[in-house]
Every structure is written in C-alpha cells, then in structure tokens.
C-alpha cells in the first residue's frame, strides 16, 4: 500500500514563537535532501511550504504542518483554526493582502504568498471560510 511506504512528519506552528515560523519547511527540506529528491522540486516545496507556514503563523494564529513523503509524490498540509479567508478569489490575487502595518514592517504582507504557492505546487486544495480556519493541501509530483 502506498500509504505504508511513505514518511510522515508533523510540526507545530506556534504563534507565540517567532522562531518556529519556517522551521517545519526547513526540516522538510533537509529530509528531502537526504532522500535525494530533485533540487528543483525541493525548492518548490520549500517556497510553497514556507509561505503557507508564514500565513498560518501571521494570519491564522498558529497551527500545524504535516508532511507525507512517498516515492511518487509529496503531500504537505498546513492547517490552522484562525479566522479563515473571507474572499479566496481576492486572496489569490498578486499583491492582495490584509496584513497590518506592523506585520509589513516585519517584512511580510506583500500579498504574494498564495500566488507563489499556486505557482509552485502541482495540486492545491484549500478549505477555508470565515471563522472556519484554513487548511491548505499541497501536492508535488515526483518524476
């Protein structure tokens, strides 16, 4: 069974700990390196996962990152129980951001996160809604 032959990794995205943002994607990247996954794919995973992680951190109030690695695909799921995305179509547009001035000062909130994620994944499944939290499932094909 495909499910059995994979590797499973889980990480907390703690909204209190600024240093933890980006940690999950960094760890997953190291793992993919050890598995000998193609660099180009590793780069796409790292970028998409980092952006999703940051979103869960700054917009979603923290959550979880789960990575499942198989020989034919990589599936990353980032979920949070935050306020959810009100208008997904708008959010997917380049440059759209609801980030506060304070967050922009920290170098985030350029509104490129979701569009970048979309550019880098093979499949993207977003479940979200006002008050429902956000759940991003990103799939990357191998070979």
């Amino acid at each position, binding site marked *: 069974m495909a499910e059995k032959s994979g590797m499973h990794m889980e990480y907390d995205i703690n909204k209190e700990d600024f240093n933890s943002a980006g940690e999950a994607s960094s760890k997953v990247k190291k793992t993919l390196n050890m598995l*000998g996954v193609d660099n180009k794919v590793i780069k796409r995973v790292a970028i998409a996962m980092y952006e999703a992680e940051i979103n869960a951190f700054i917009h979603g109030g923290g959550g979880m990152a789960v990575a499942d690695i198989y020989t034919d695909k990589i599936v990353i799921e980032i979920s949070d129980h935050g306020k959810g995305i009100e208008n997904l179509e708008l959010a997917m547009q380049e440059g759209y951001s609801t980030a506060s001035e304070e967050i922009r000062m920290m170098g985030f909130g350029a509104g*490129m996160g979701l569009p970048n994620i979309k550019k880098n994944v093979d499949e993207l499944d977003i479940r979200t809604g006002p008050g429902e939290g956000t759940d991003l499932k990103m799939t990357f094909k191998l070979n």
Partner: protein
Amino acid sequence: METFRMQYSAPKGQKRNGPVKIASGLQEPIKRYHSITLDEDKCVGCTSCIKRCPTEAIRVHKSKARIINSRCIDCGECIRVCPHGAKHAITTDLLELDNYKYRVAIPAPAIYGQYRSARSRNHILTALKKLGFDDVFEVALGAEYVSNATRQYLKTVKKEKNLEGPVISTACPAIIRLIQVRFPNLMDNMLPLEAPVEVAARLAREKAKRDTSYGDSAIGIFFISPCASKMFSQYFPLRGEKSPVDGVISFQEIYMNLRNKIKSLKDDEIEDLEQATNYGVRWPSPGGESMALDINKFIAVDGIHDVVKIFETIENSNKFDDIDFLEALACKGGCLGGALTVKNHFVSQVIMKTMRDEAKAKDRENELTDLPNRDIDYHDILWDKQLEHIPIHKLDTDMAKAMKKLERMEKIADALPSLDCGACGAPSCRALAEDIVRDEAKITDCVFVLRERVRALANQMFELESMLPPTMIRDDKRDSDSEAEHRHESLSNDVNDD
C-alpha cells in the same frame, strides 16, 4: 606610475561563449582535490574541530580527525580552530620556483594589511620582488577587471535572464563549494566569472611576454595567498584546461622573510609597482567587491556560518529578490581573515585603512573619482564549465531505500542521548545516526550506549554466576549463601534503626 594600457583578451583557443555543460566525471576530481590535510603526528583527537565544520566533514577515528574528502569545502575553519596546529592547507613547494626562468609574484591585496611597519604598498611589493621574483603584479588590479566585467554581467543578467534572487559573488572558492554541496538551488545565482587571481595571472603572463622573450613554459606565476581554499581552483579551473596560476605560496610561509626585507629596504630601492586604485585595494575587506559595482542594493556577509544562514533564507523565501548582489566570504573579516594570514583581521583592517587612504590620495592626483575603466569583455572571463551538485547528504540512490535508512536513522537518533558530546567522533548525535545507517559507524561508538550495554552485560553475568547447575552446588556454598543473607538482613536492620 606606469601608463601602459592593458587590454584583457581571452586566452588562446578558448571560446567566448557561455558555459558548456559537462555531464559527468566532474565530481571525482573535486572529491579528491581539496586542500586541507591533517598532520597525524600533531592531531591528538581532541574533537575541537568537528563541530566547527559547516559541512560536518570531520570524524575522529582512532584519535585522528580525518576529513571526508567529498564533503570538505576548504573553508579553513578547522585550521583556525585546531589548538594543536594539526590542520594544514596544501600549498606549493618553494622549490618549484626553480622550474621557471621568469617568476612573477601575484600577491592578494590582503597582504597590504599584514605589515604595520610598511610605509606604502610599493614597500611591500618591492620587498616581495626582492625575495626572488622577477616581477610583481597586483591581484588588486585583476580585481578591478573583474569589477568591470561584473558590472556588465549584472546588466545583462537583469535584462536577459529571469534570475530570482541576487547574483552571488564567486571570488571565494569556499563559497562555490558550499553552494555545490549544500545549496544546489543557488547554483544559477553564482557569478560565473573567473576570480581576480586568475585574471591577474593571465594579465601578468601577458605582461611577462611583452617584457621578455620567454615562452609560456619558462614563465611561472605564483599567487601569494591568504586563503586555504584557493588550491581548489588550481586543481579545478572553471575556465580553460589548466589554471593560469602555477603555484600558491601562503602569507605565513613568507611572513618573516618579507618583514625583514621590508625593514631593510632603502628609500632609493623602492620601485613603483603599484597599479591598482583604491577600489582594488579595498576588495578583500567585506563589502569591497560590492562597492566597486555601482549598485545600491547589495548584502555583504562574512564568516561561513553566517553565510549558511543567509543562503538558507534565500533558498526558502523570496525575501532577497530585490537585492542585486550578495557578496559572501567564508572567512570572518573576508580575505583579511584568511586561514593563511598572520595578523588578526581586526588589526589588518586598521592597516588596510591607511593603505586605502594612500591609494585614494593617489587616485585624486590622477583625477580618478569612479572605478577605473578596465578594458575587458565579461565573456572573456566567463566560466566554460558548469558545476554540478554534489549531494553529500543523500542516503541512497534509490528513494525507497533512502526512506528506510532515514527511518532507521530517526530511530537511532531517538535512542541516542542528544548530548552532541563528540566522544563518538561525530559532530552530533544525529551525525552519528547518519554514519550508522551509512555503515560507517556502530551504535556502540556512543559512550553512553556502550556504558548501558556494559552495565546490562555485567548484570547478566552476575545473574549467570549465581545460576550454578544443581550438580555443582555444594553444601558449604549453601551455607555461605545463607550467611550472606543473614548479613544482609542485619545490615538492613541497621539502616532501619533510626
């Protein structure tokens, strides 16, 4: 000051165009040729170096800190940290000077920061020449050619290539190797141009041919070097078949001789050998390369561990997409802090300031306010080989097998104490776990695991010892057993008697 104008032209027989992809056979020579070696007699196996290595390339085996060749990037960290002076960089034997009729020294500009007593650059250059060279040619001048070429490259790369993130400087060979082994996704960002030393070497050779009637094989170009990693480009030239540099001599090796020579020079002996402007003189200090580029957005980072941090950020995010140029130098203090220098880099920074001021004054006299326009086309120093990723962390070529190994590695890592004490010879518990799944180490290399095993074994022996077969149990044995029991009882009585 000499006024001849030098034009940089491509070496004969070389194409003027972009890199040729060399698909295979590249990894092997790089694996073998790196320049850091261990003096086994001096190494006591103290493990000081294993944790400083940015690529986890050192393991202590049988009390000797051996280097895993494919991982070493020649950054020189271990040379600096070793308290016993056991790590060295290979340089050229001085006897090789004798192989050439006409010898040119090309000193790295960092040399100007080594001698507090030197009154000018010309003092240092003249003294160097007198150590046994026929001419001296500044690498600082080569650097100015590279700056001109880099300006051209940056303009075209912005227009033609869709490059994400900054162009990364490649003047430091350790950085090239770091990218190759740890940051393959940044390979396209590397500035694919020869370093100042190579450019200076070619210019020096041309000048030697103009000045003399010697042919190529009679002319020897020797780099006077602060750098532990420069030998790499000697063995593996990124342009052409053979490096234009014939040998590398370290600052340390000539330090005292040069110092004495500088001191004994008389005023009328000083030759005018200075050719570089203050831009070239500034090159080896962090930021020096960037400041000659006429761009506003650059980052200069020095020290291999900080470079790793910046590279990680670039690889993970688009945070530095607005930065044009990233100058990364493996040594703290840039080449002034090179592993083969003598002076502490903070001290040489101060001396360099004086040298730069002198150069600036001279530039003002020559009415030079901007970077001098060195005559070069960047295609003439463009790499003609493409570097390949060296996947040092890959556990297996078969991904399913790699996964099994990684799972096993995680389990082993969990069973280890996470103390990263280094007593096993690996830089961390995780590194030992990795070595174990690669069949290069055993779990009992961990002293704590070993102690547990010994204890378990001791307990087992103790148990076994008391389990004599019934045929062998003698009456007196039974007696002494019960005696012991009695003693034990009375002892516990004593303890409870409070």
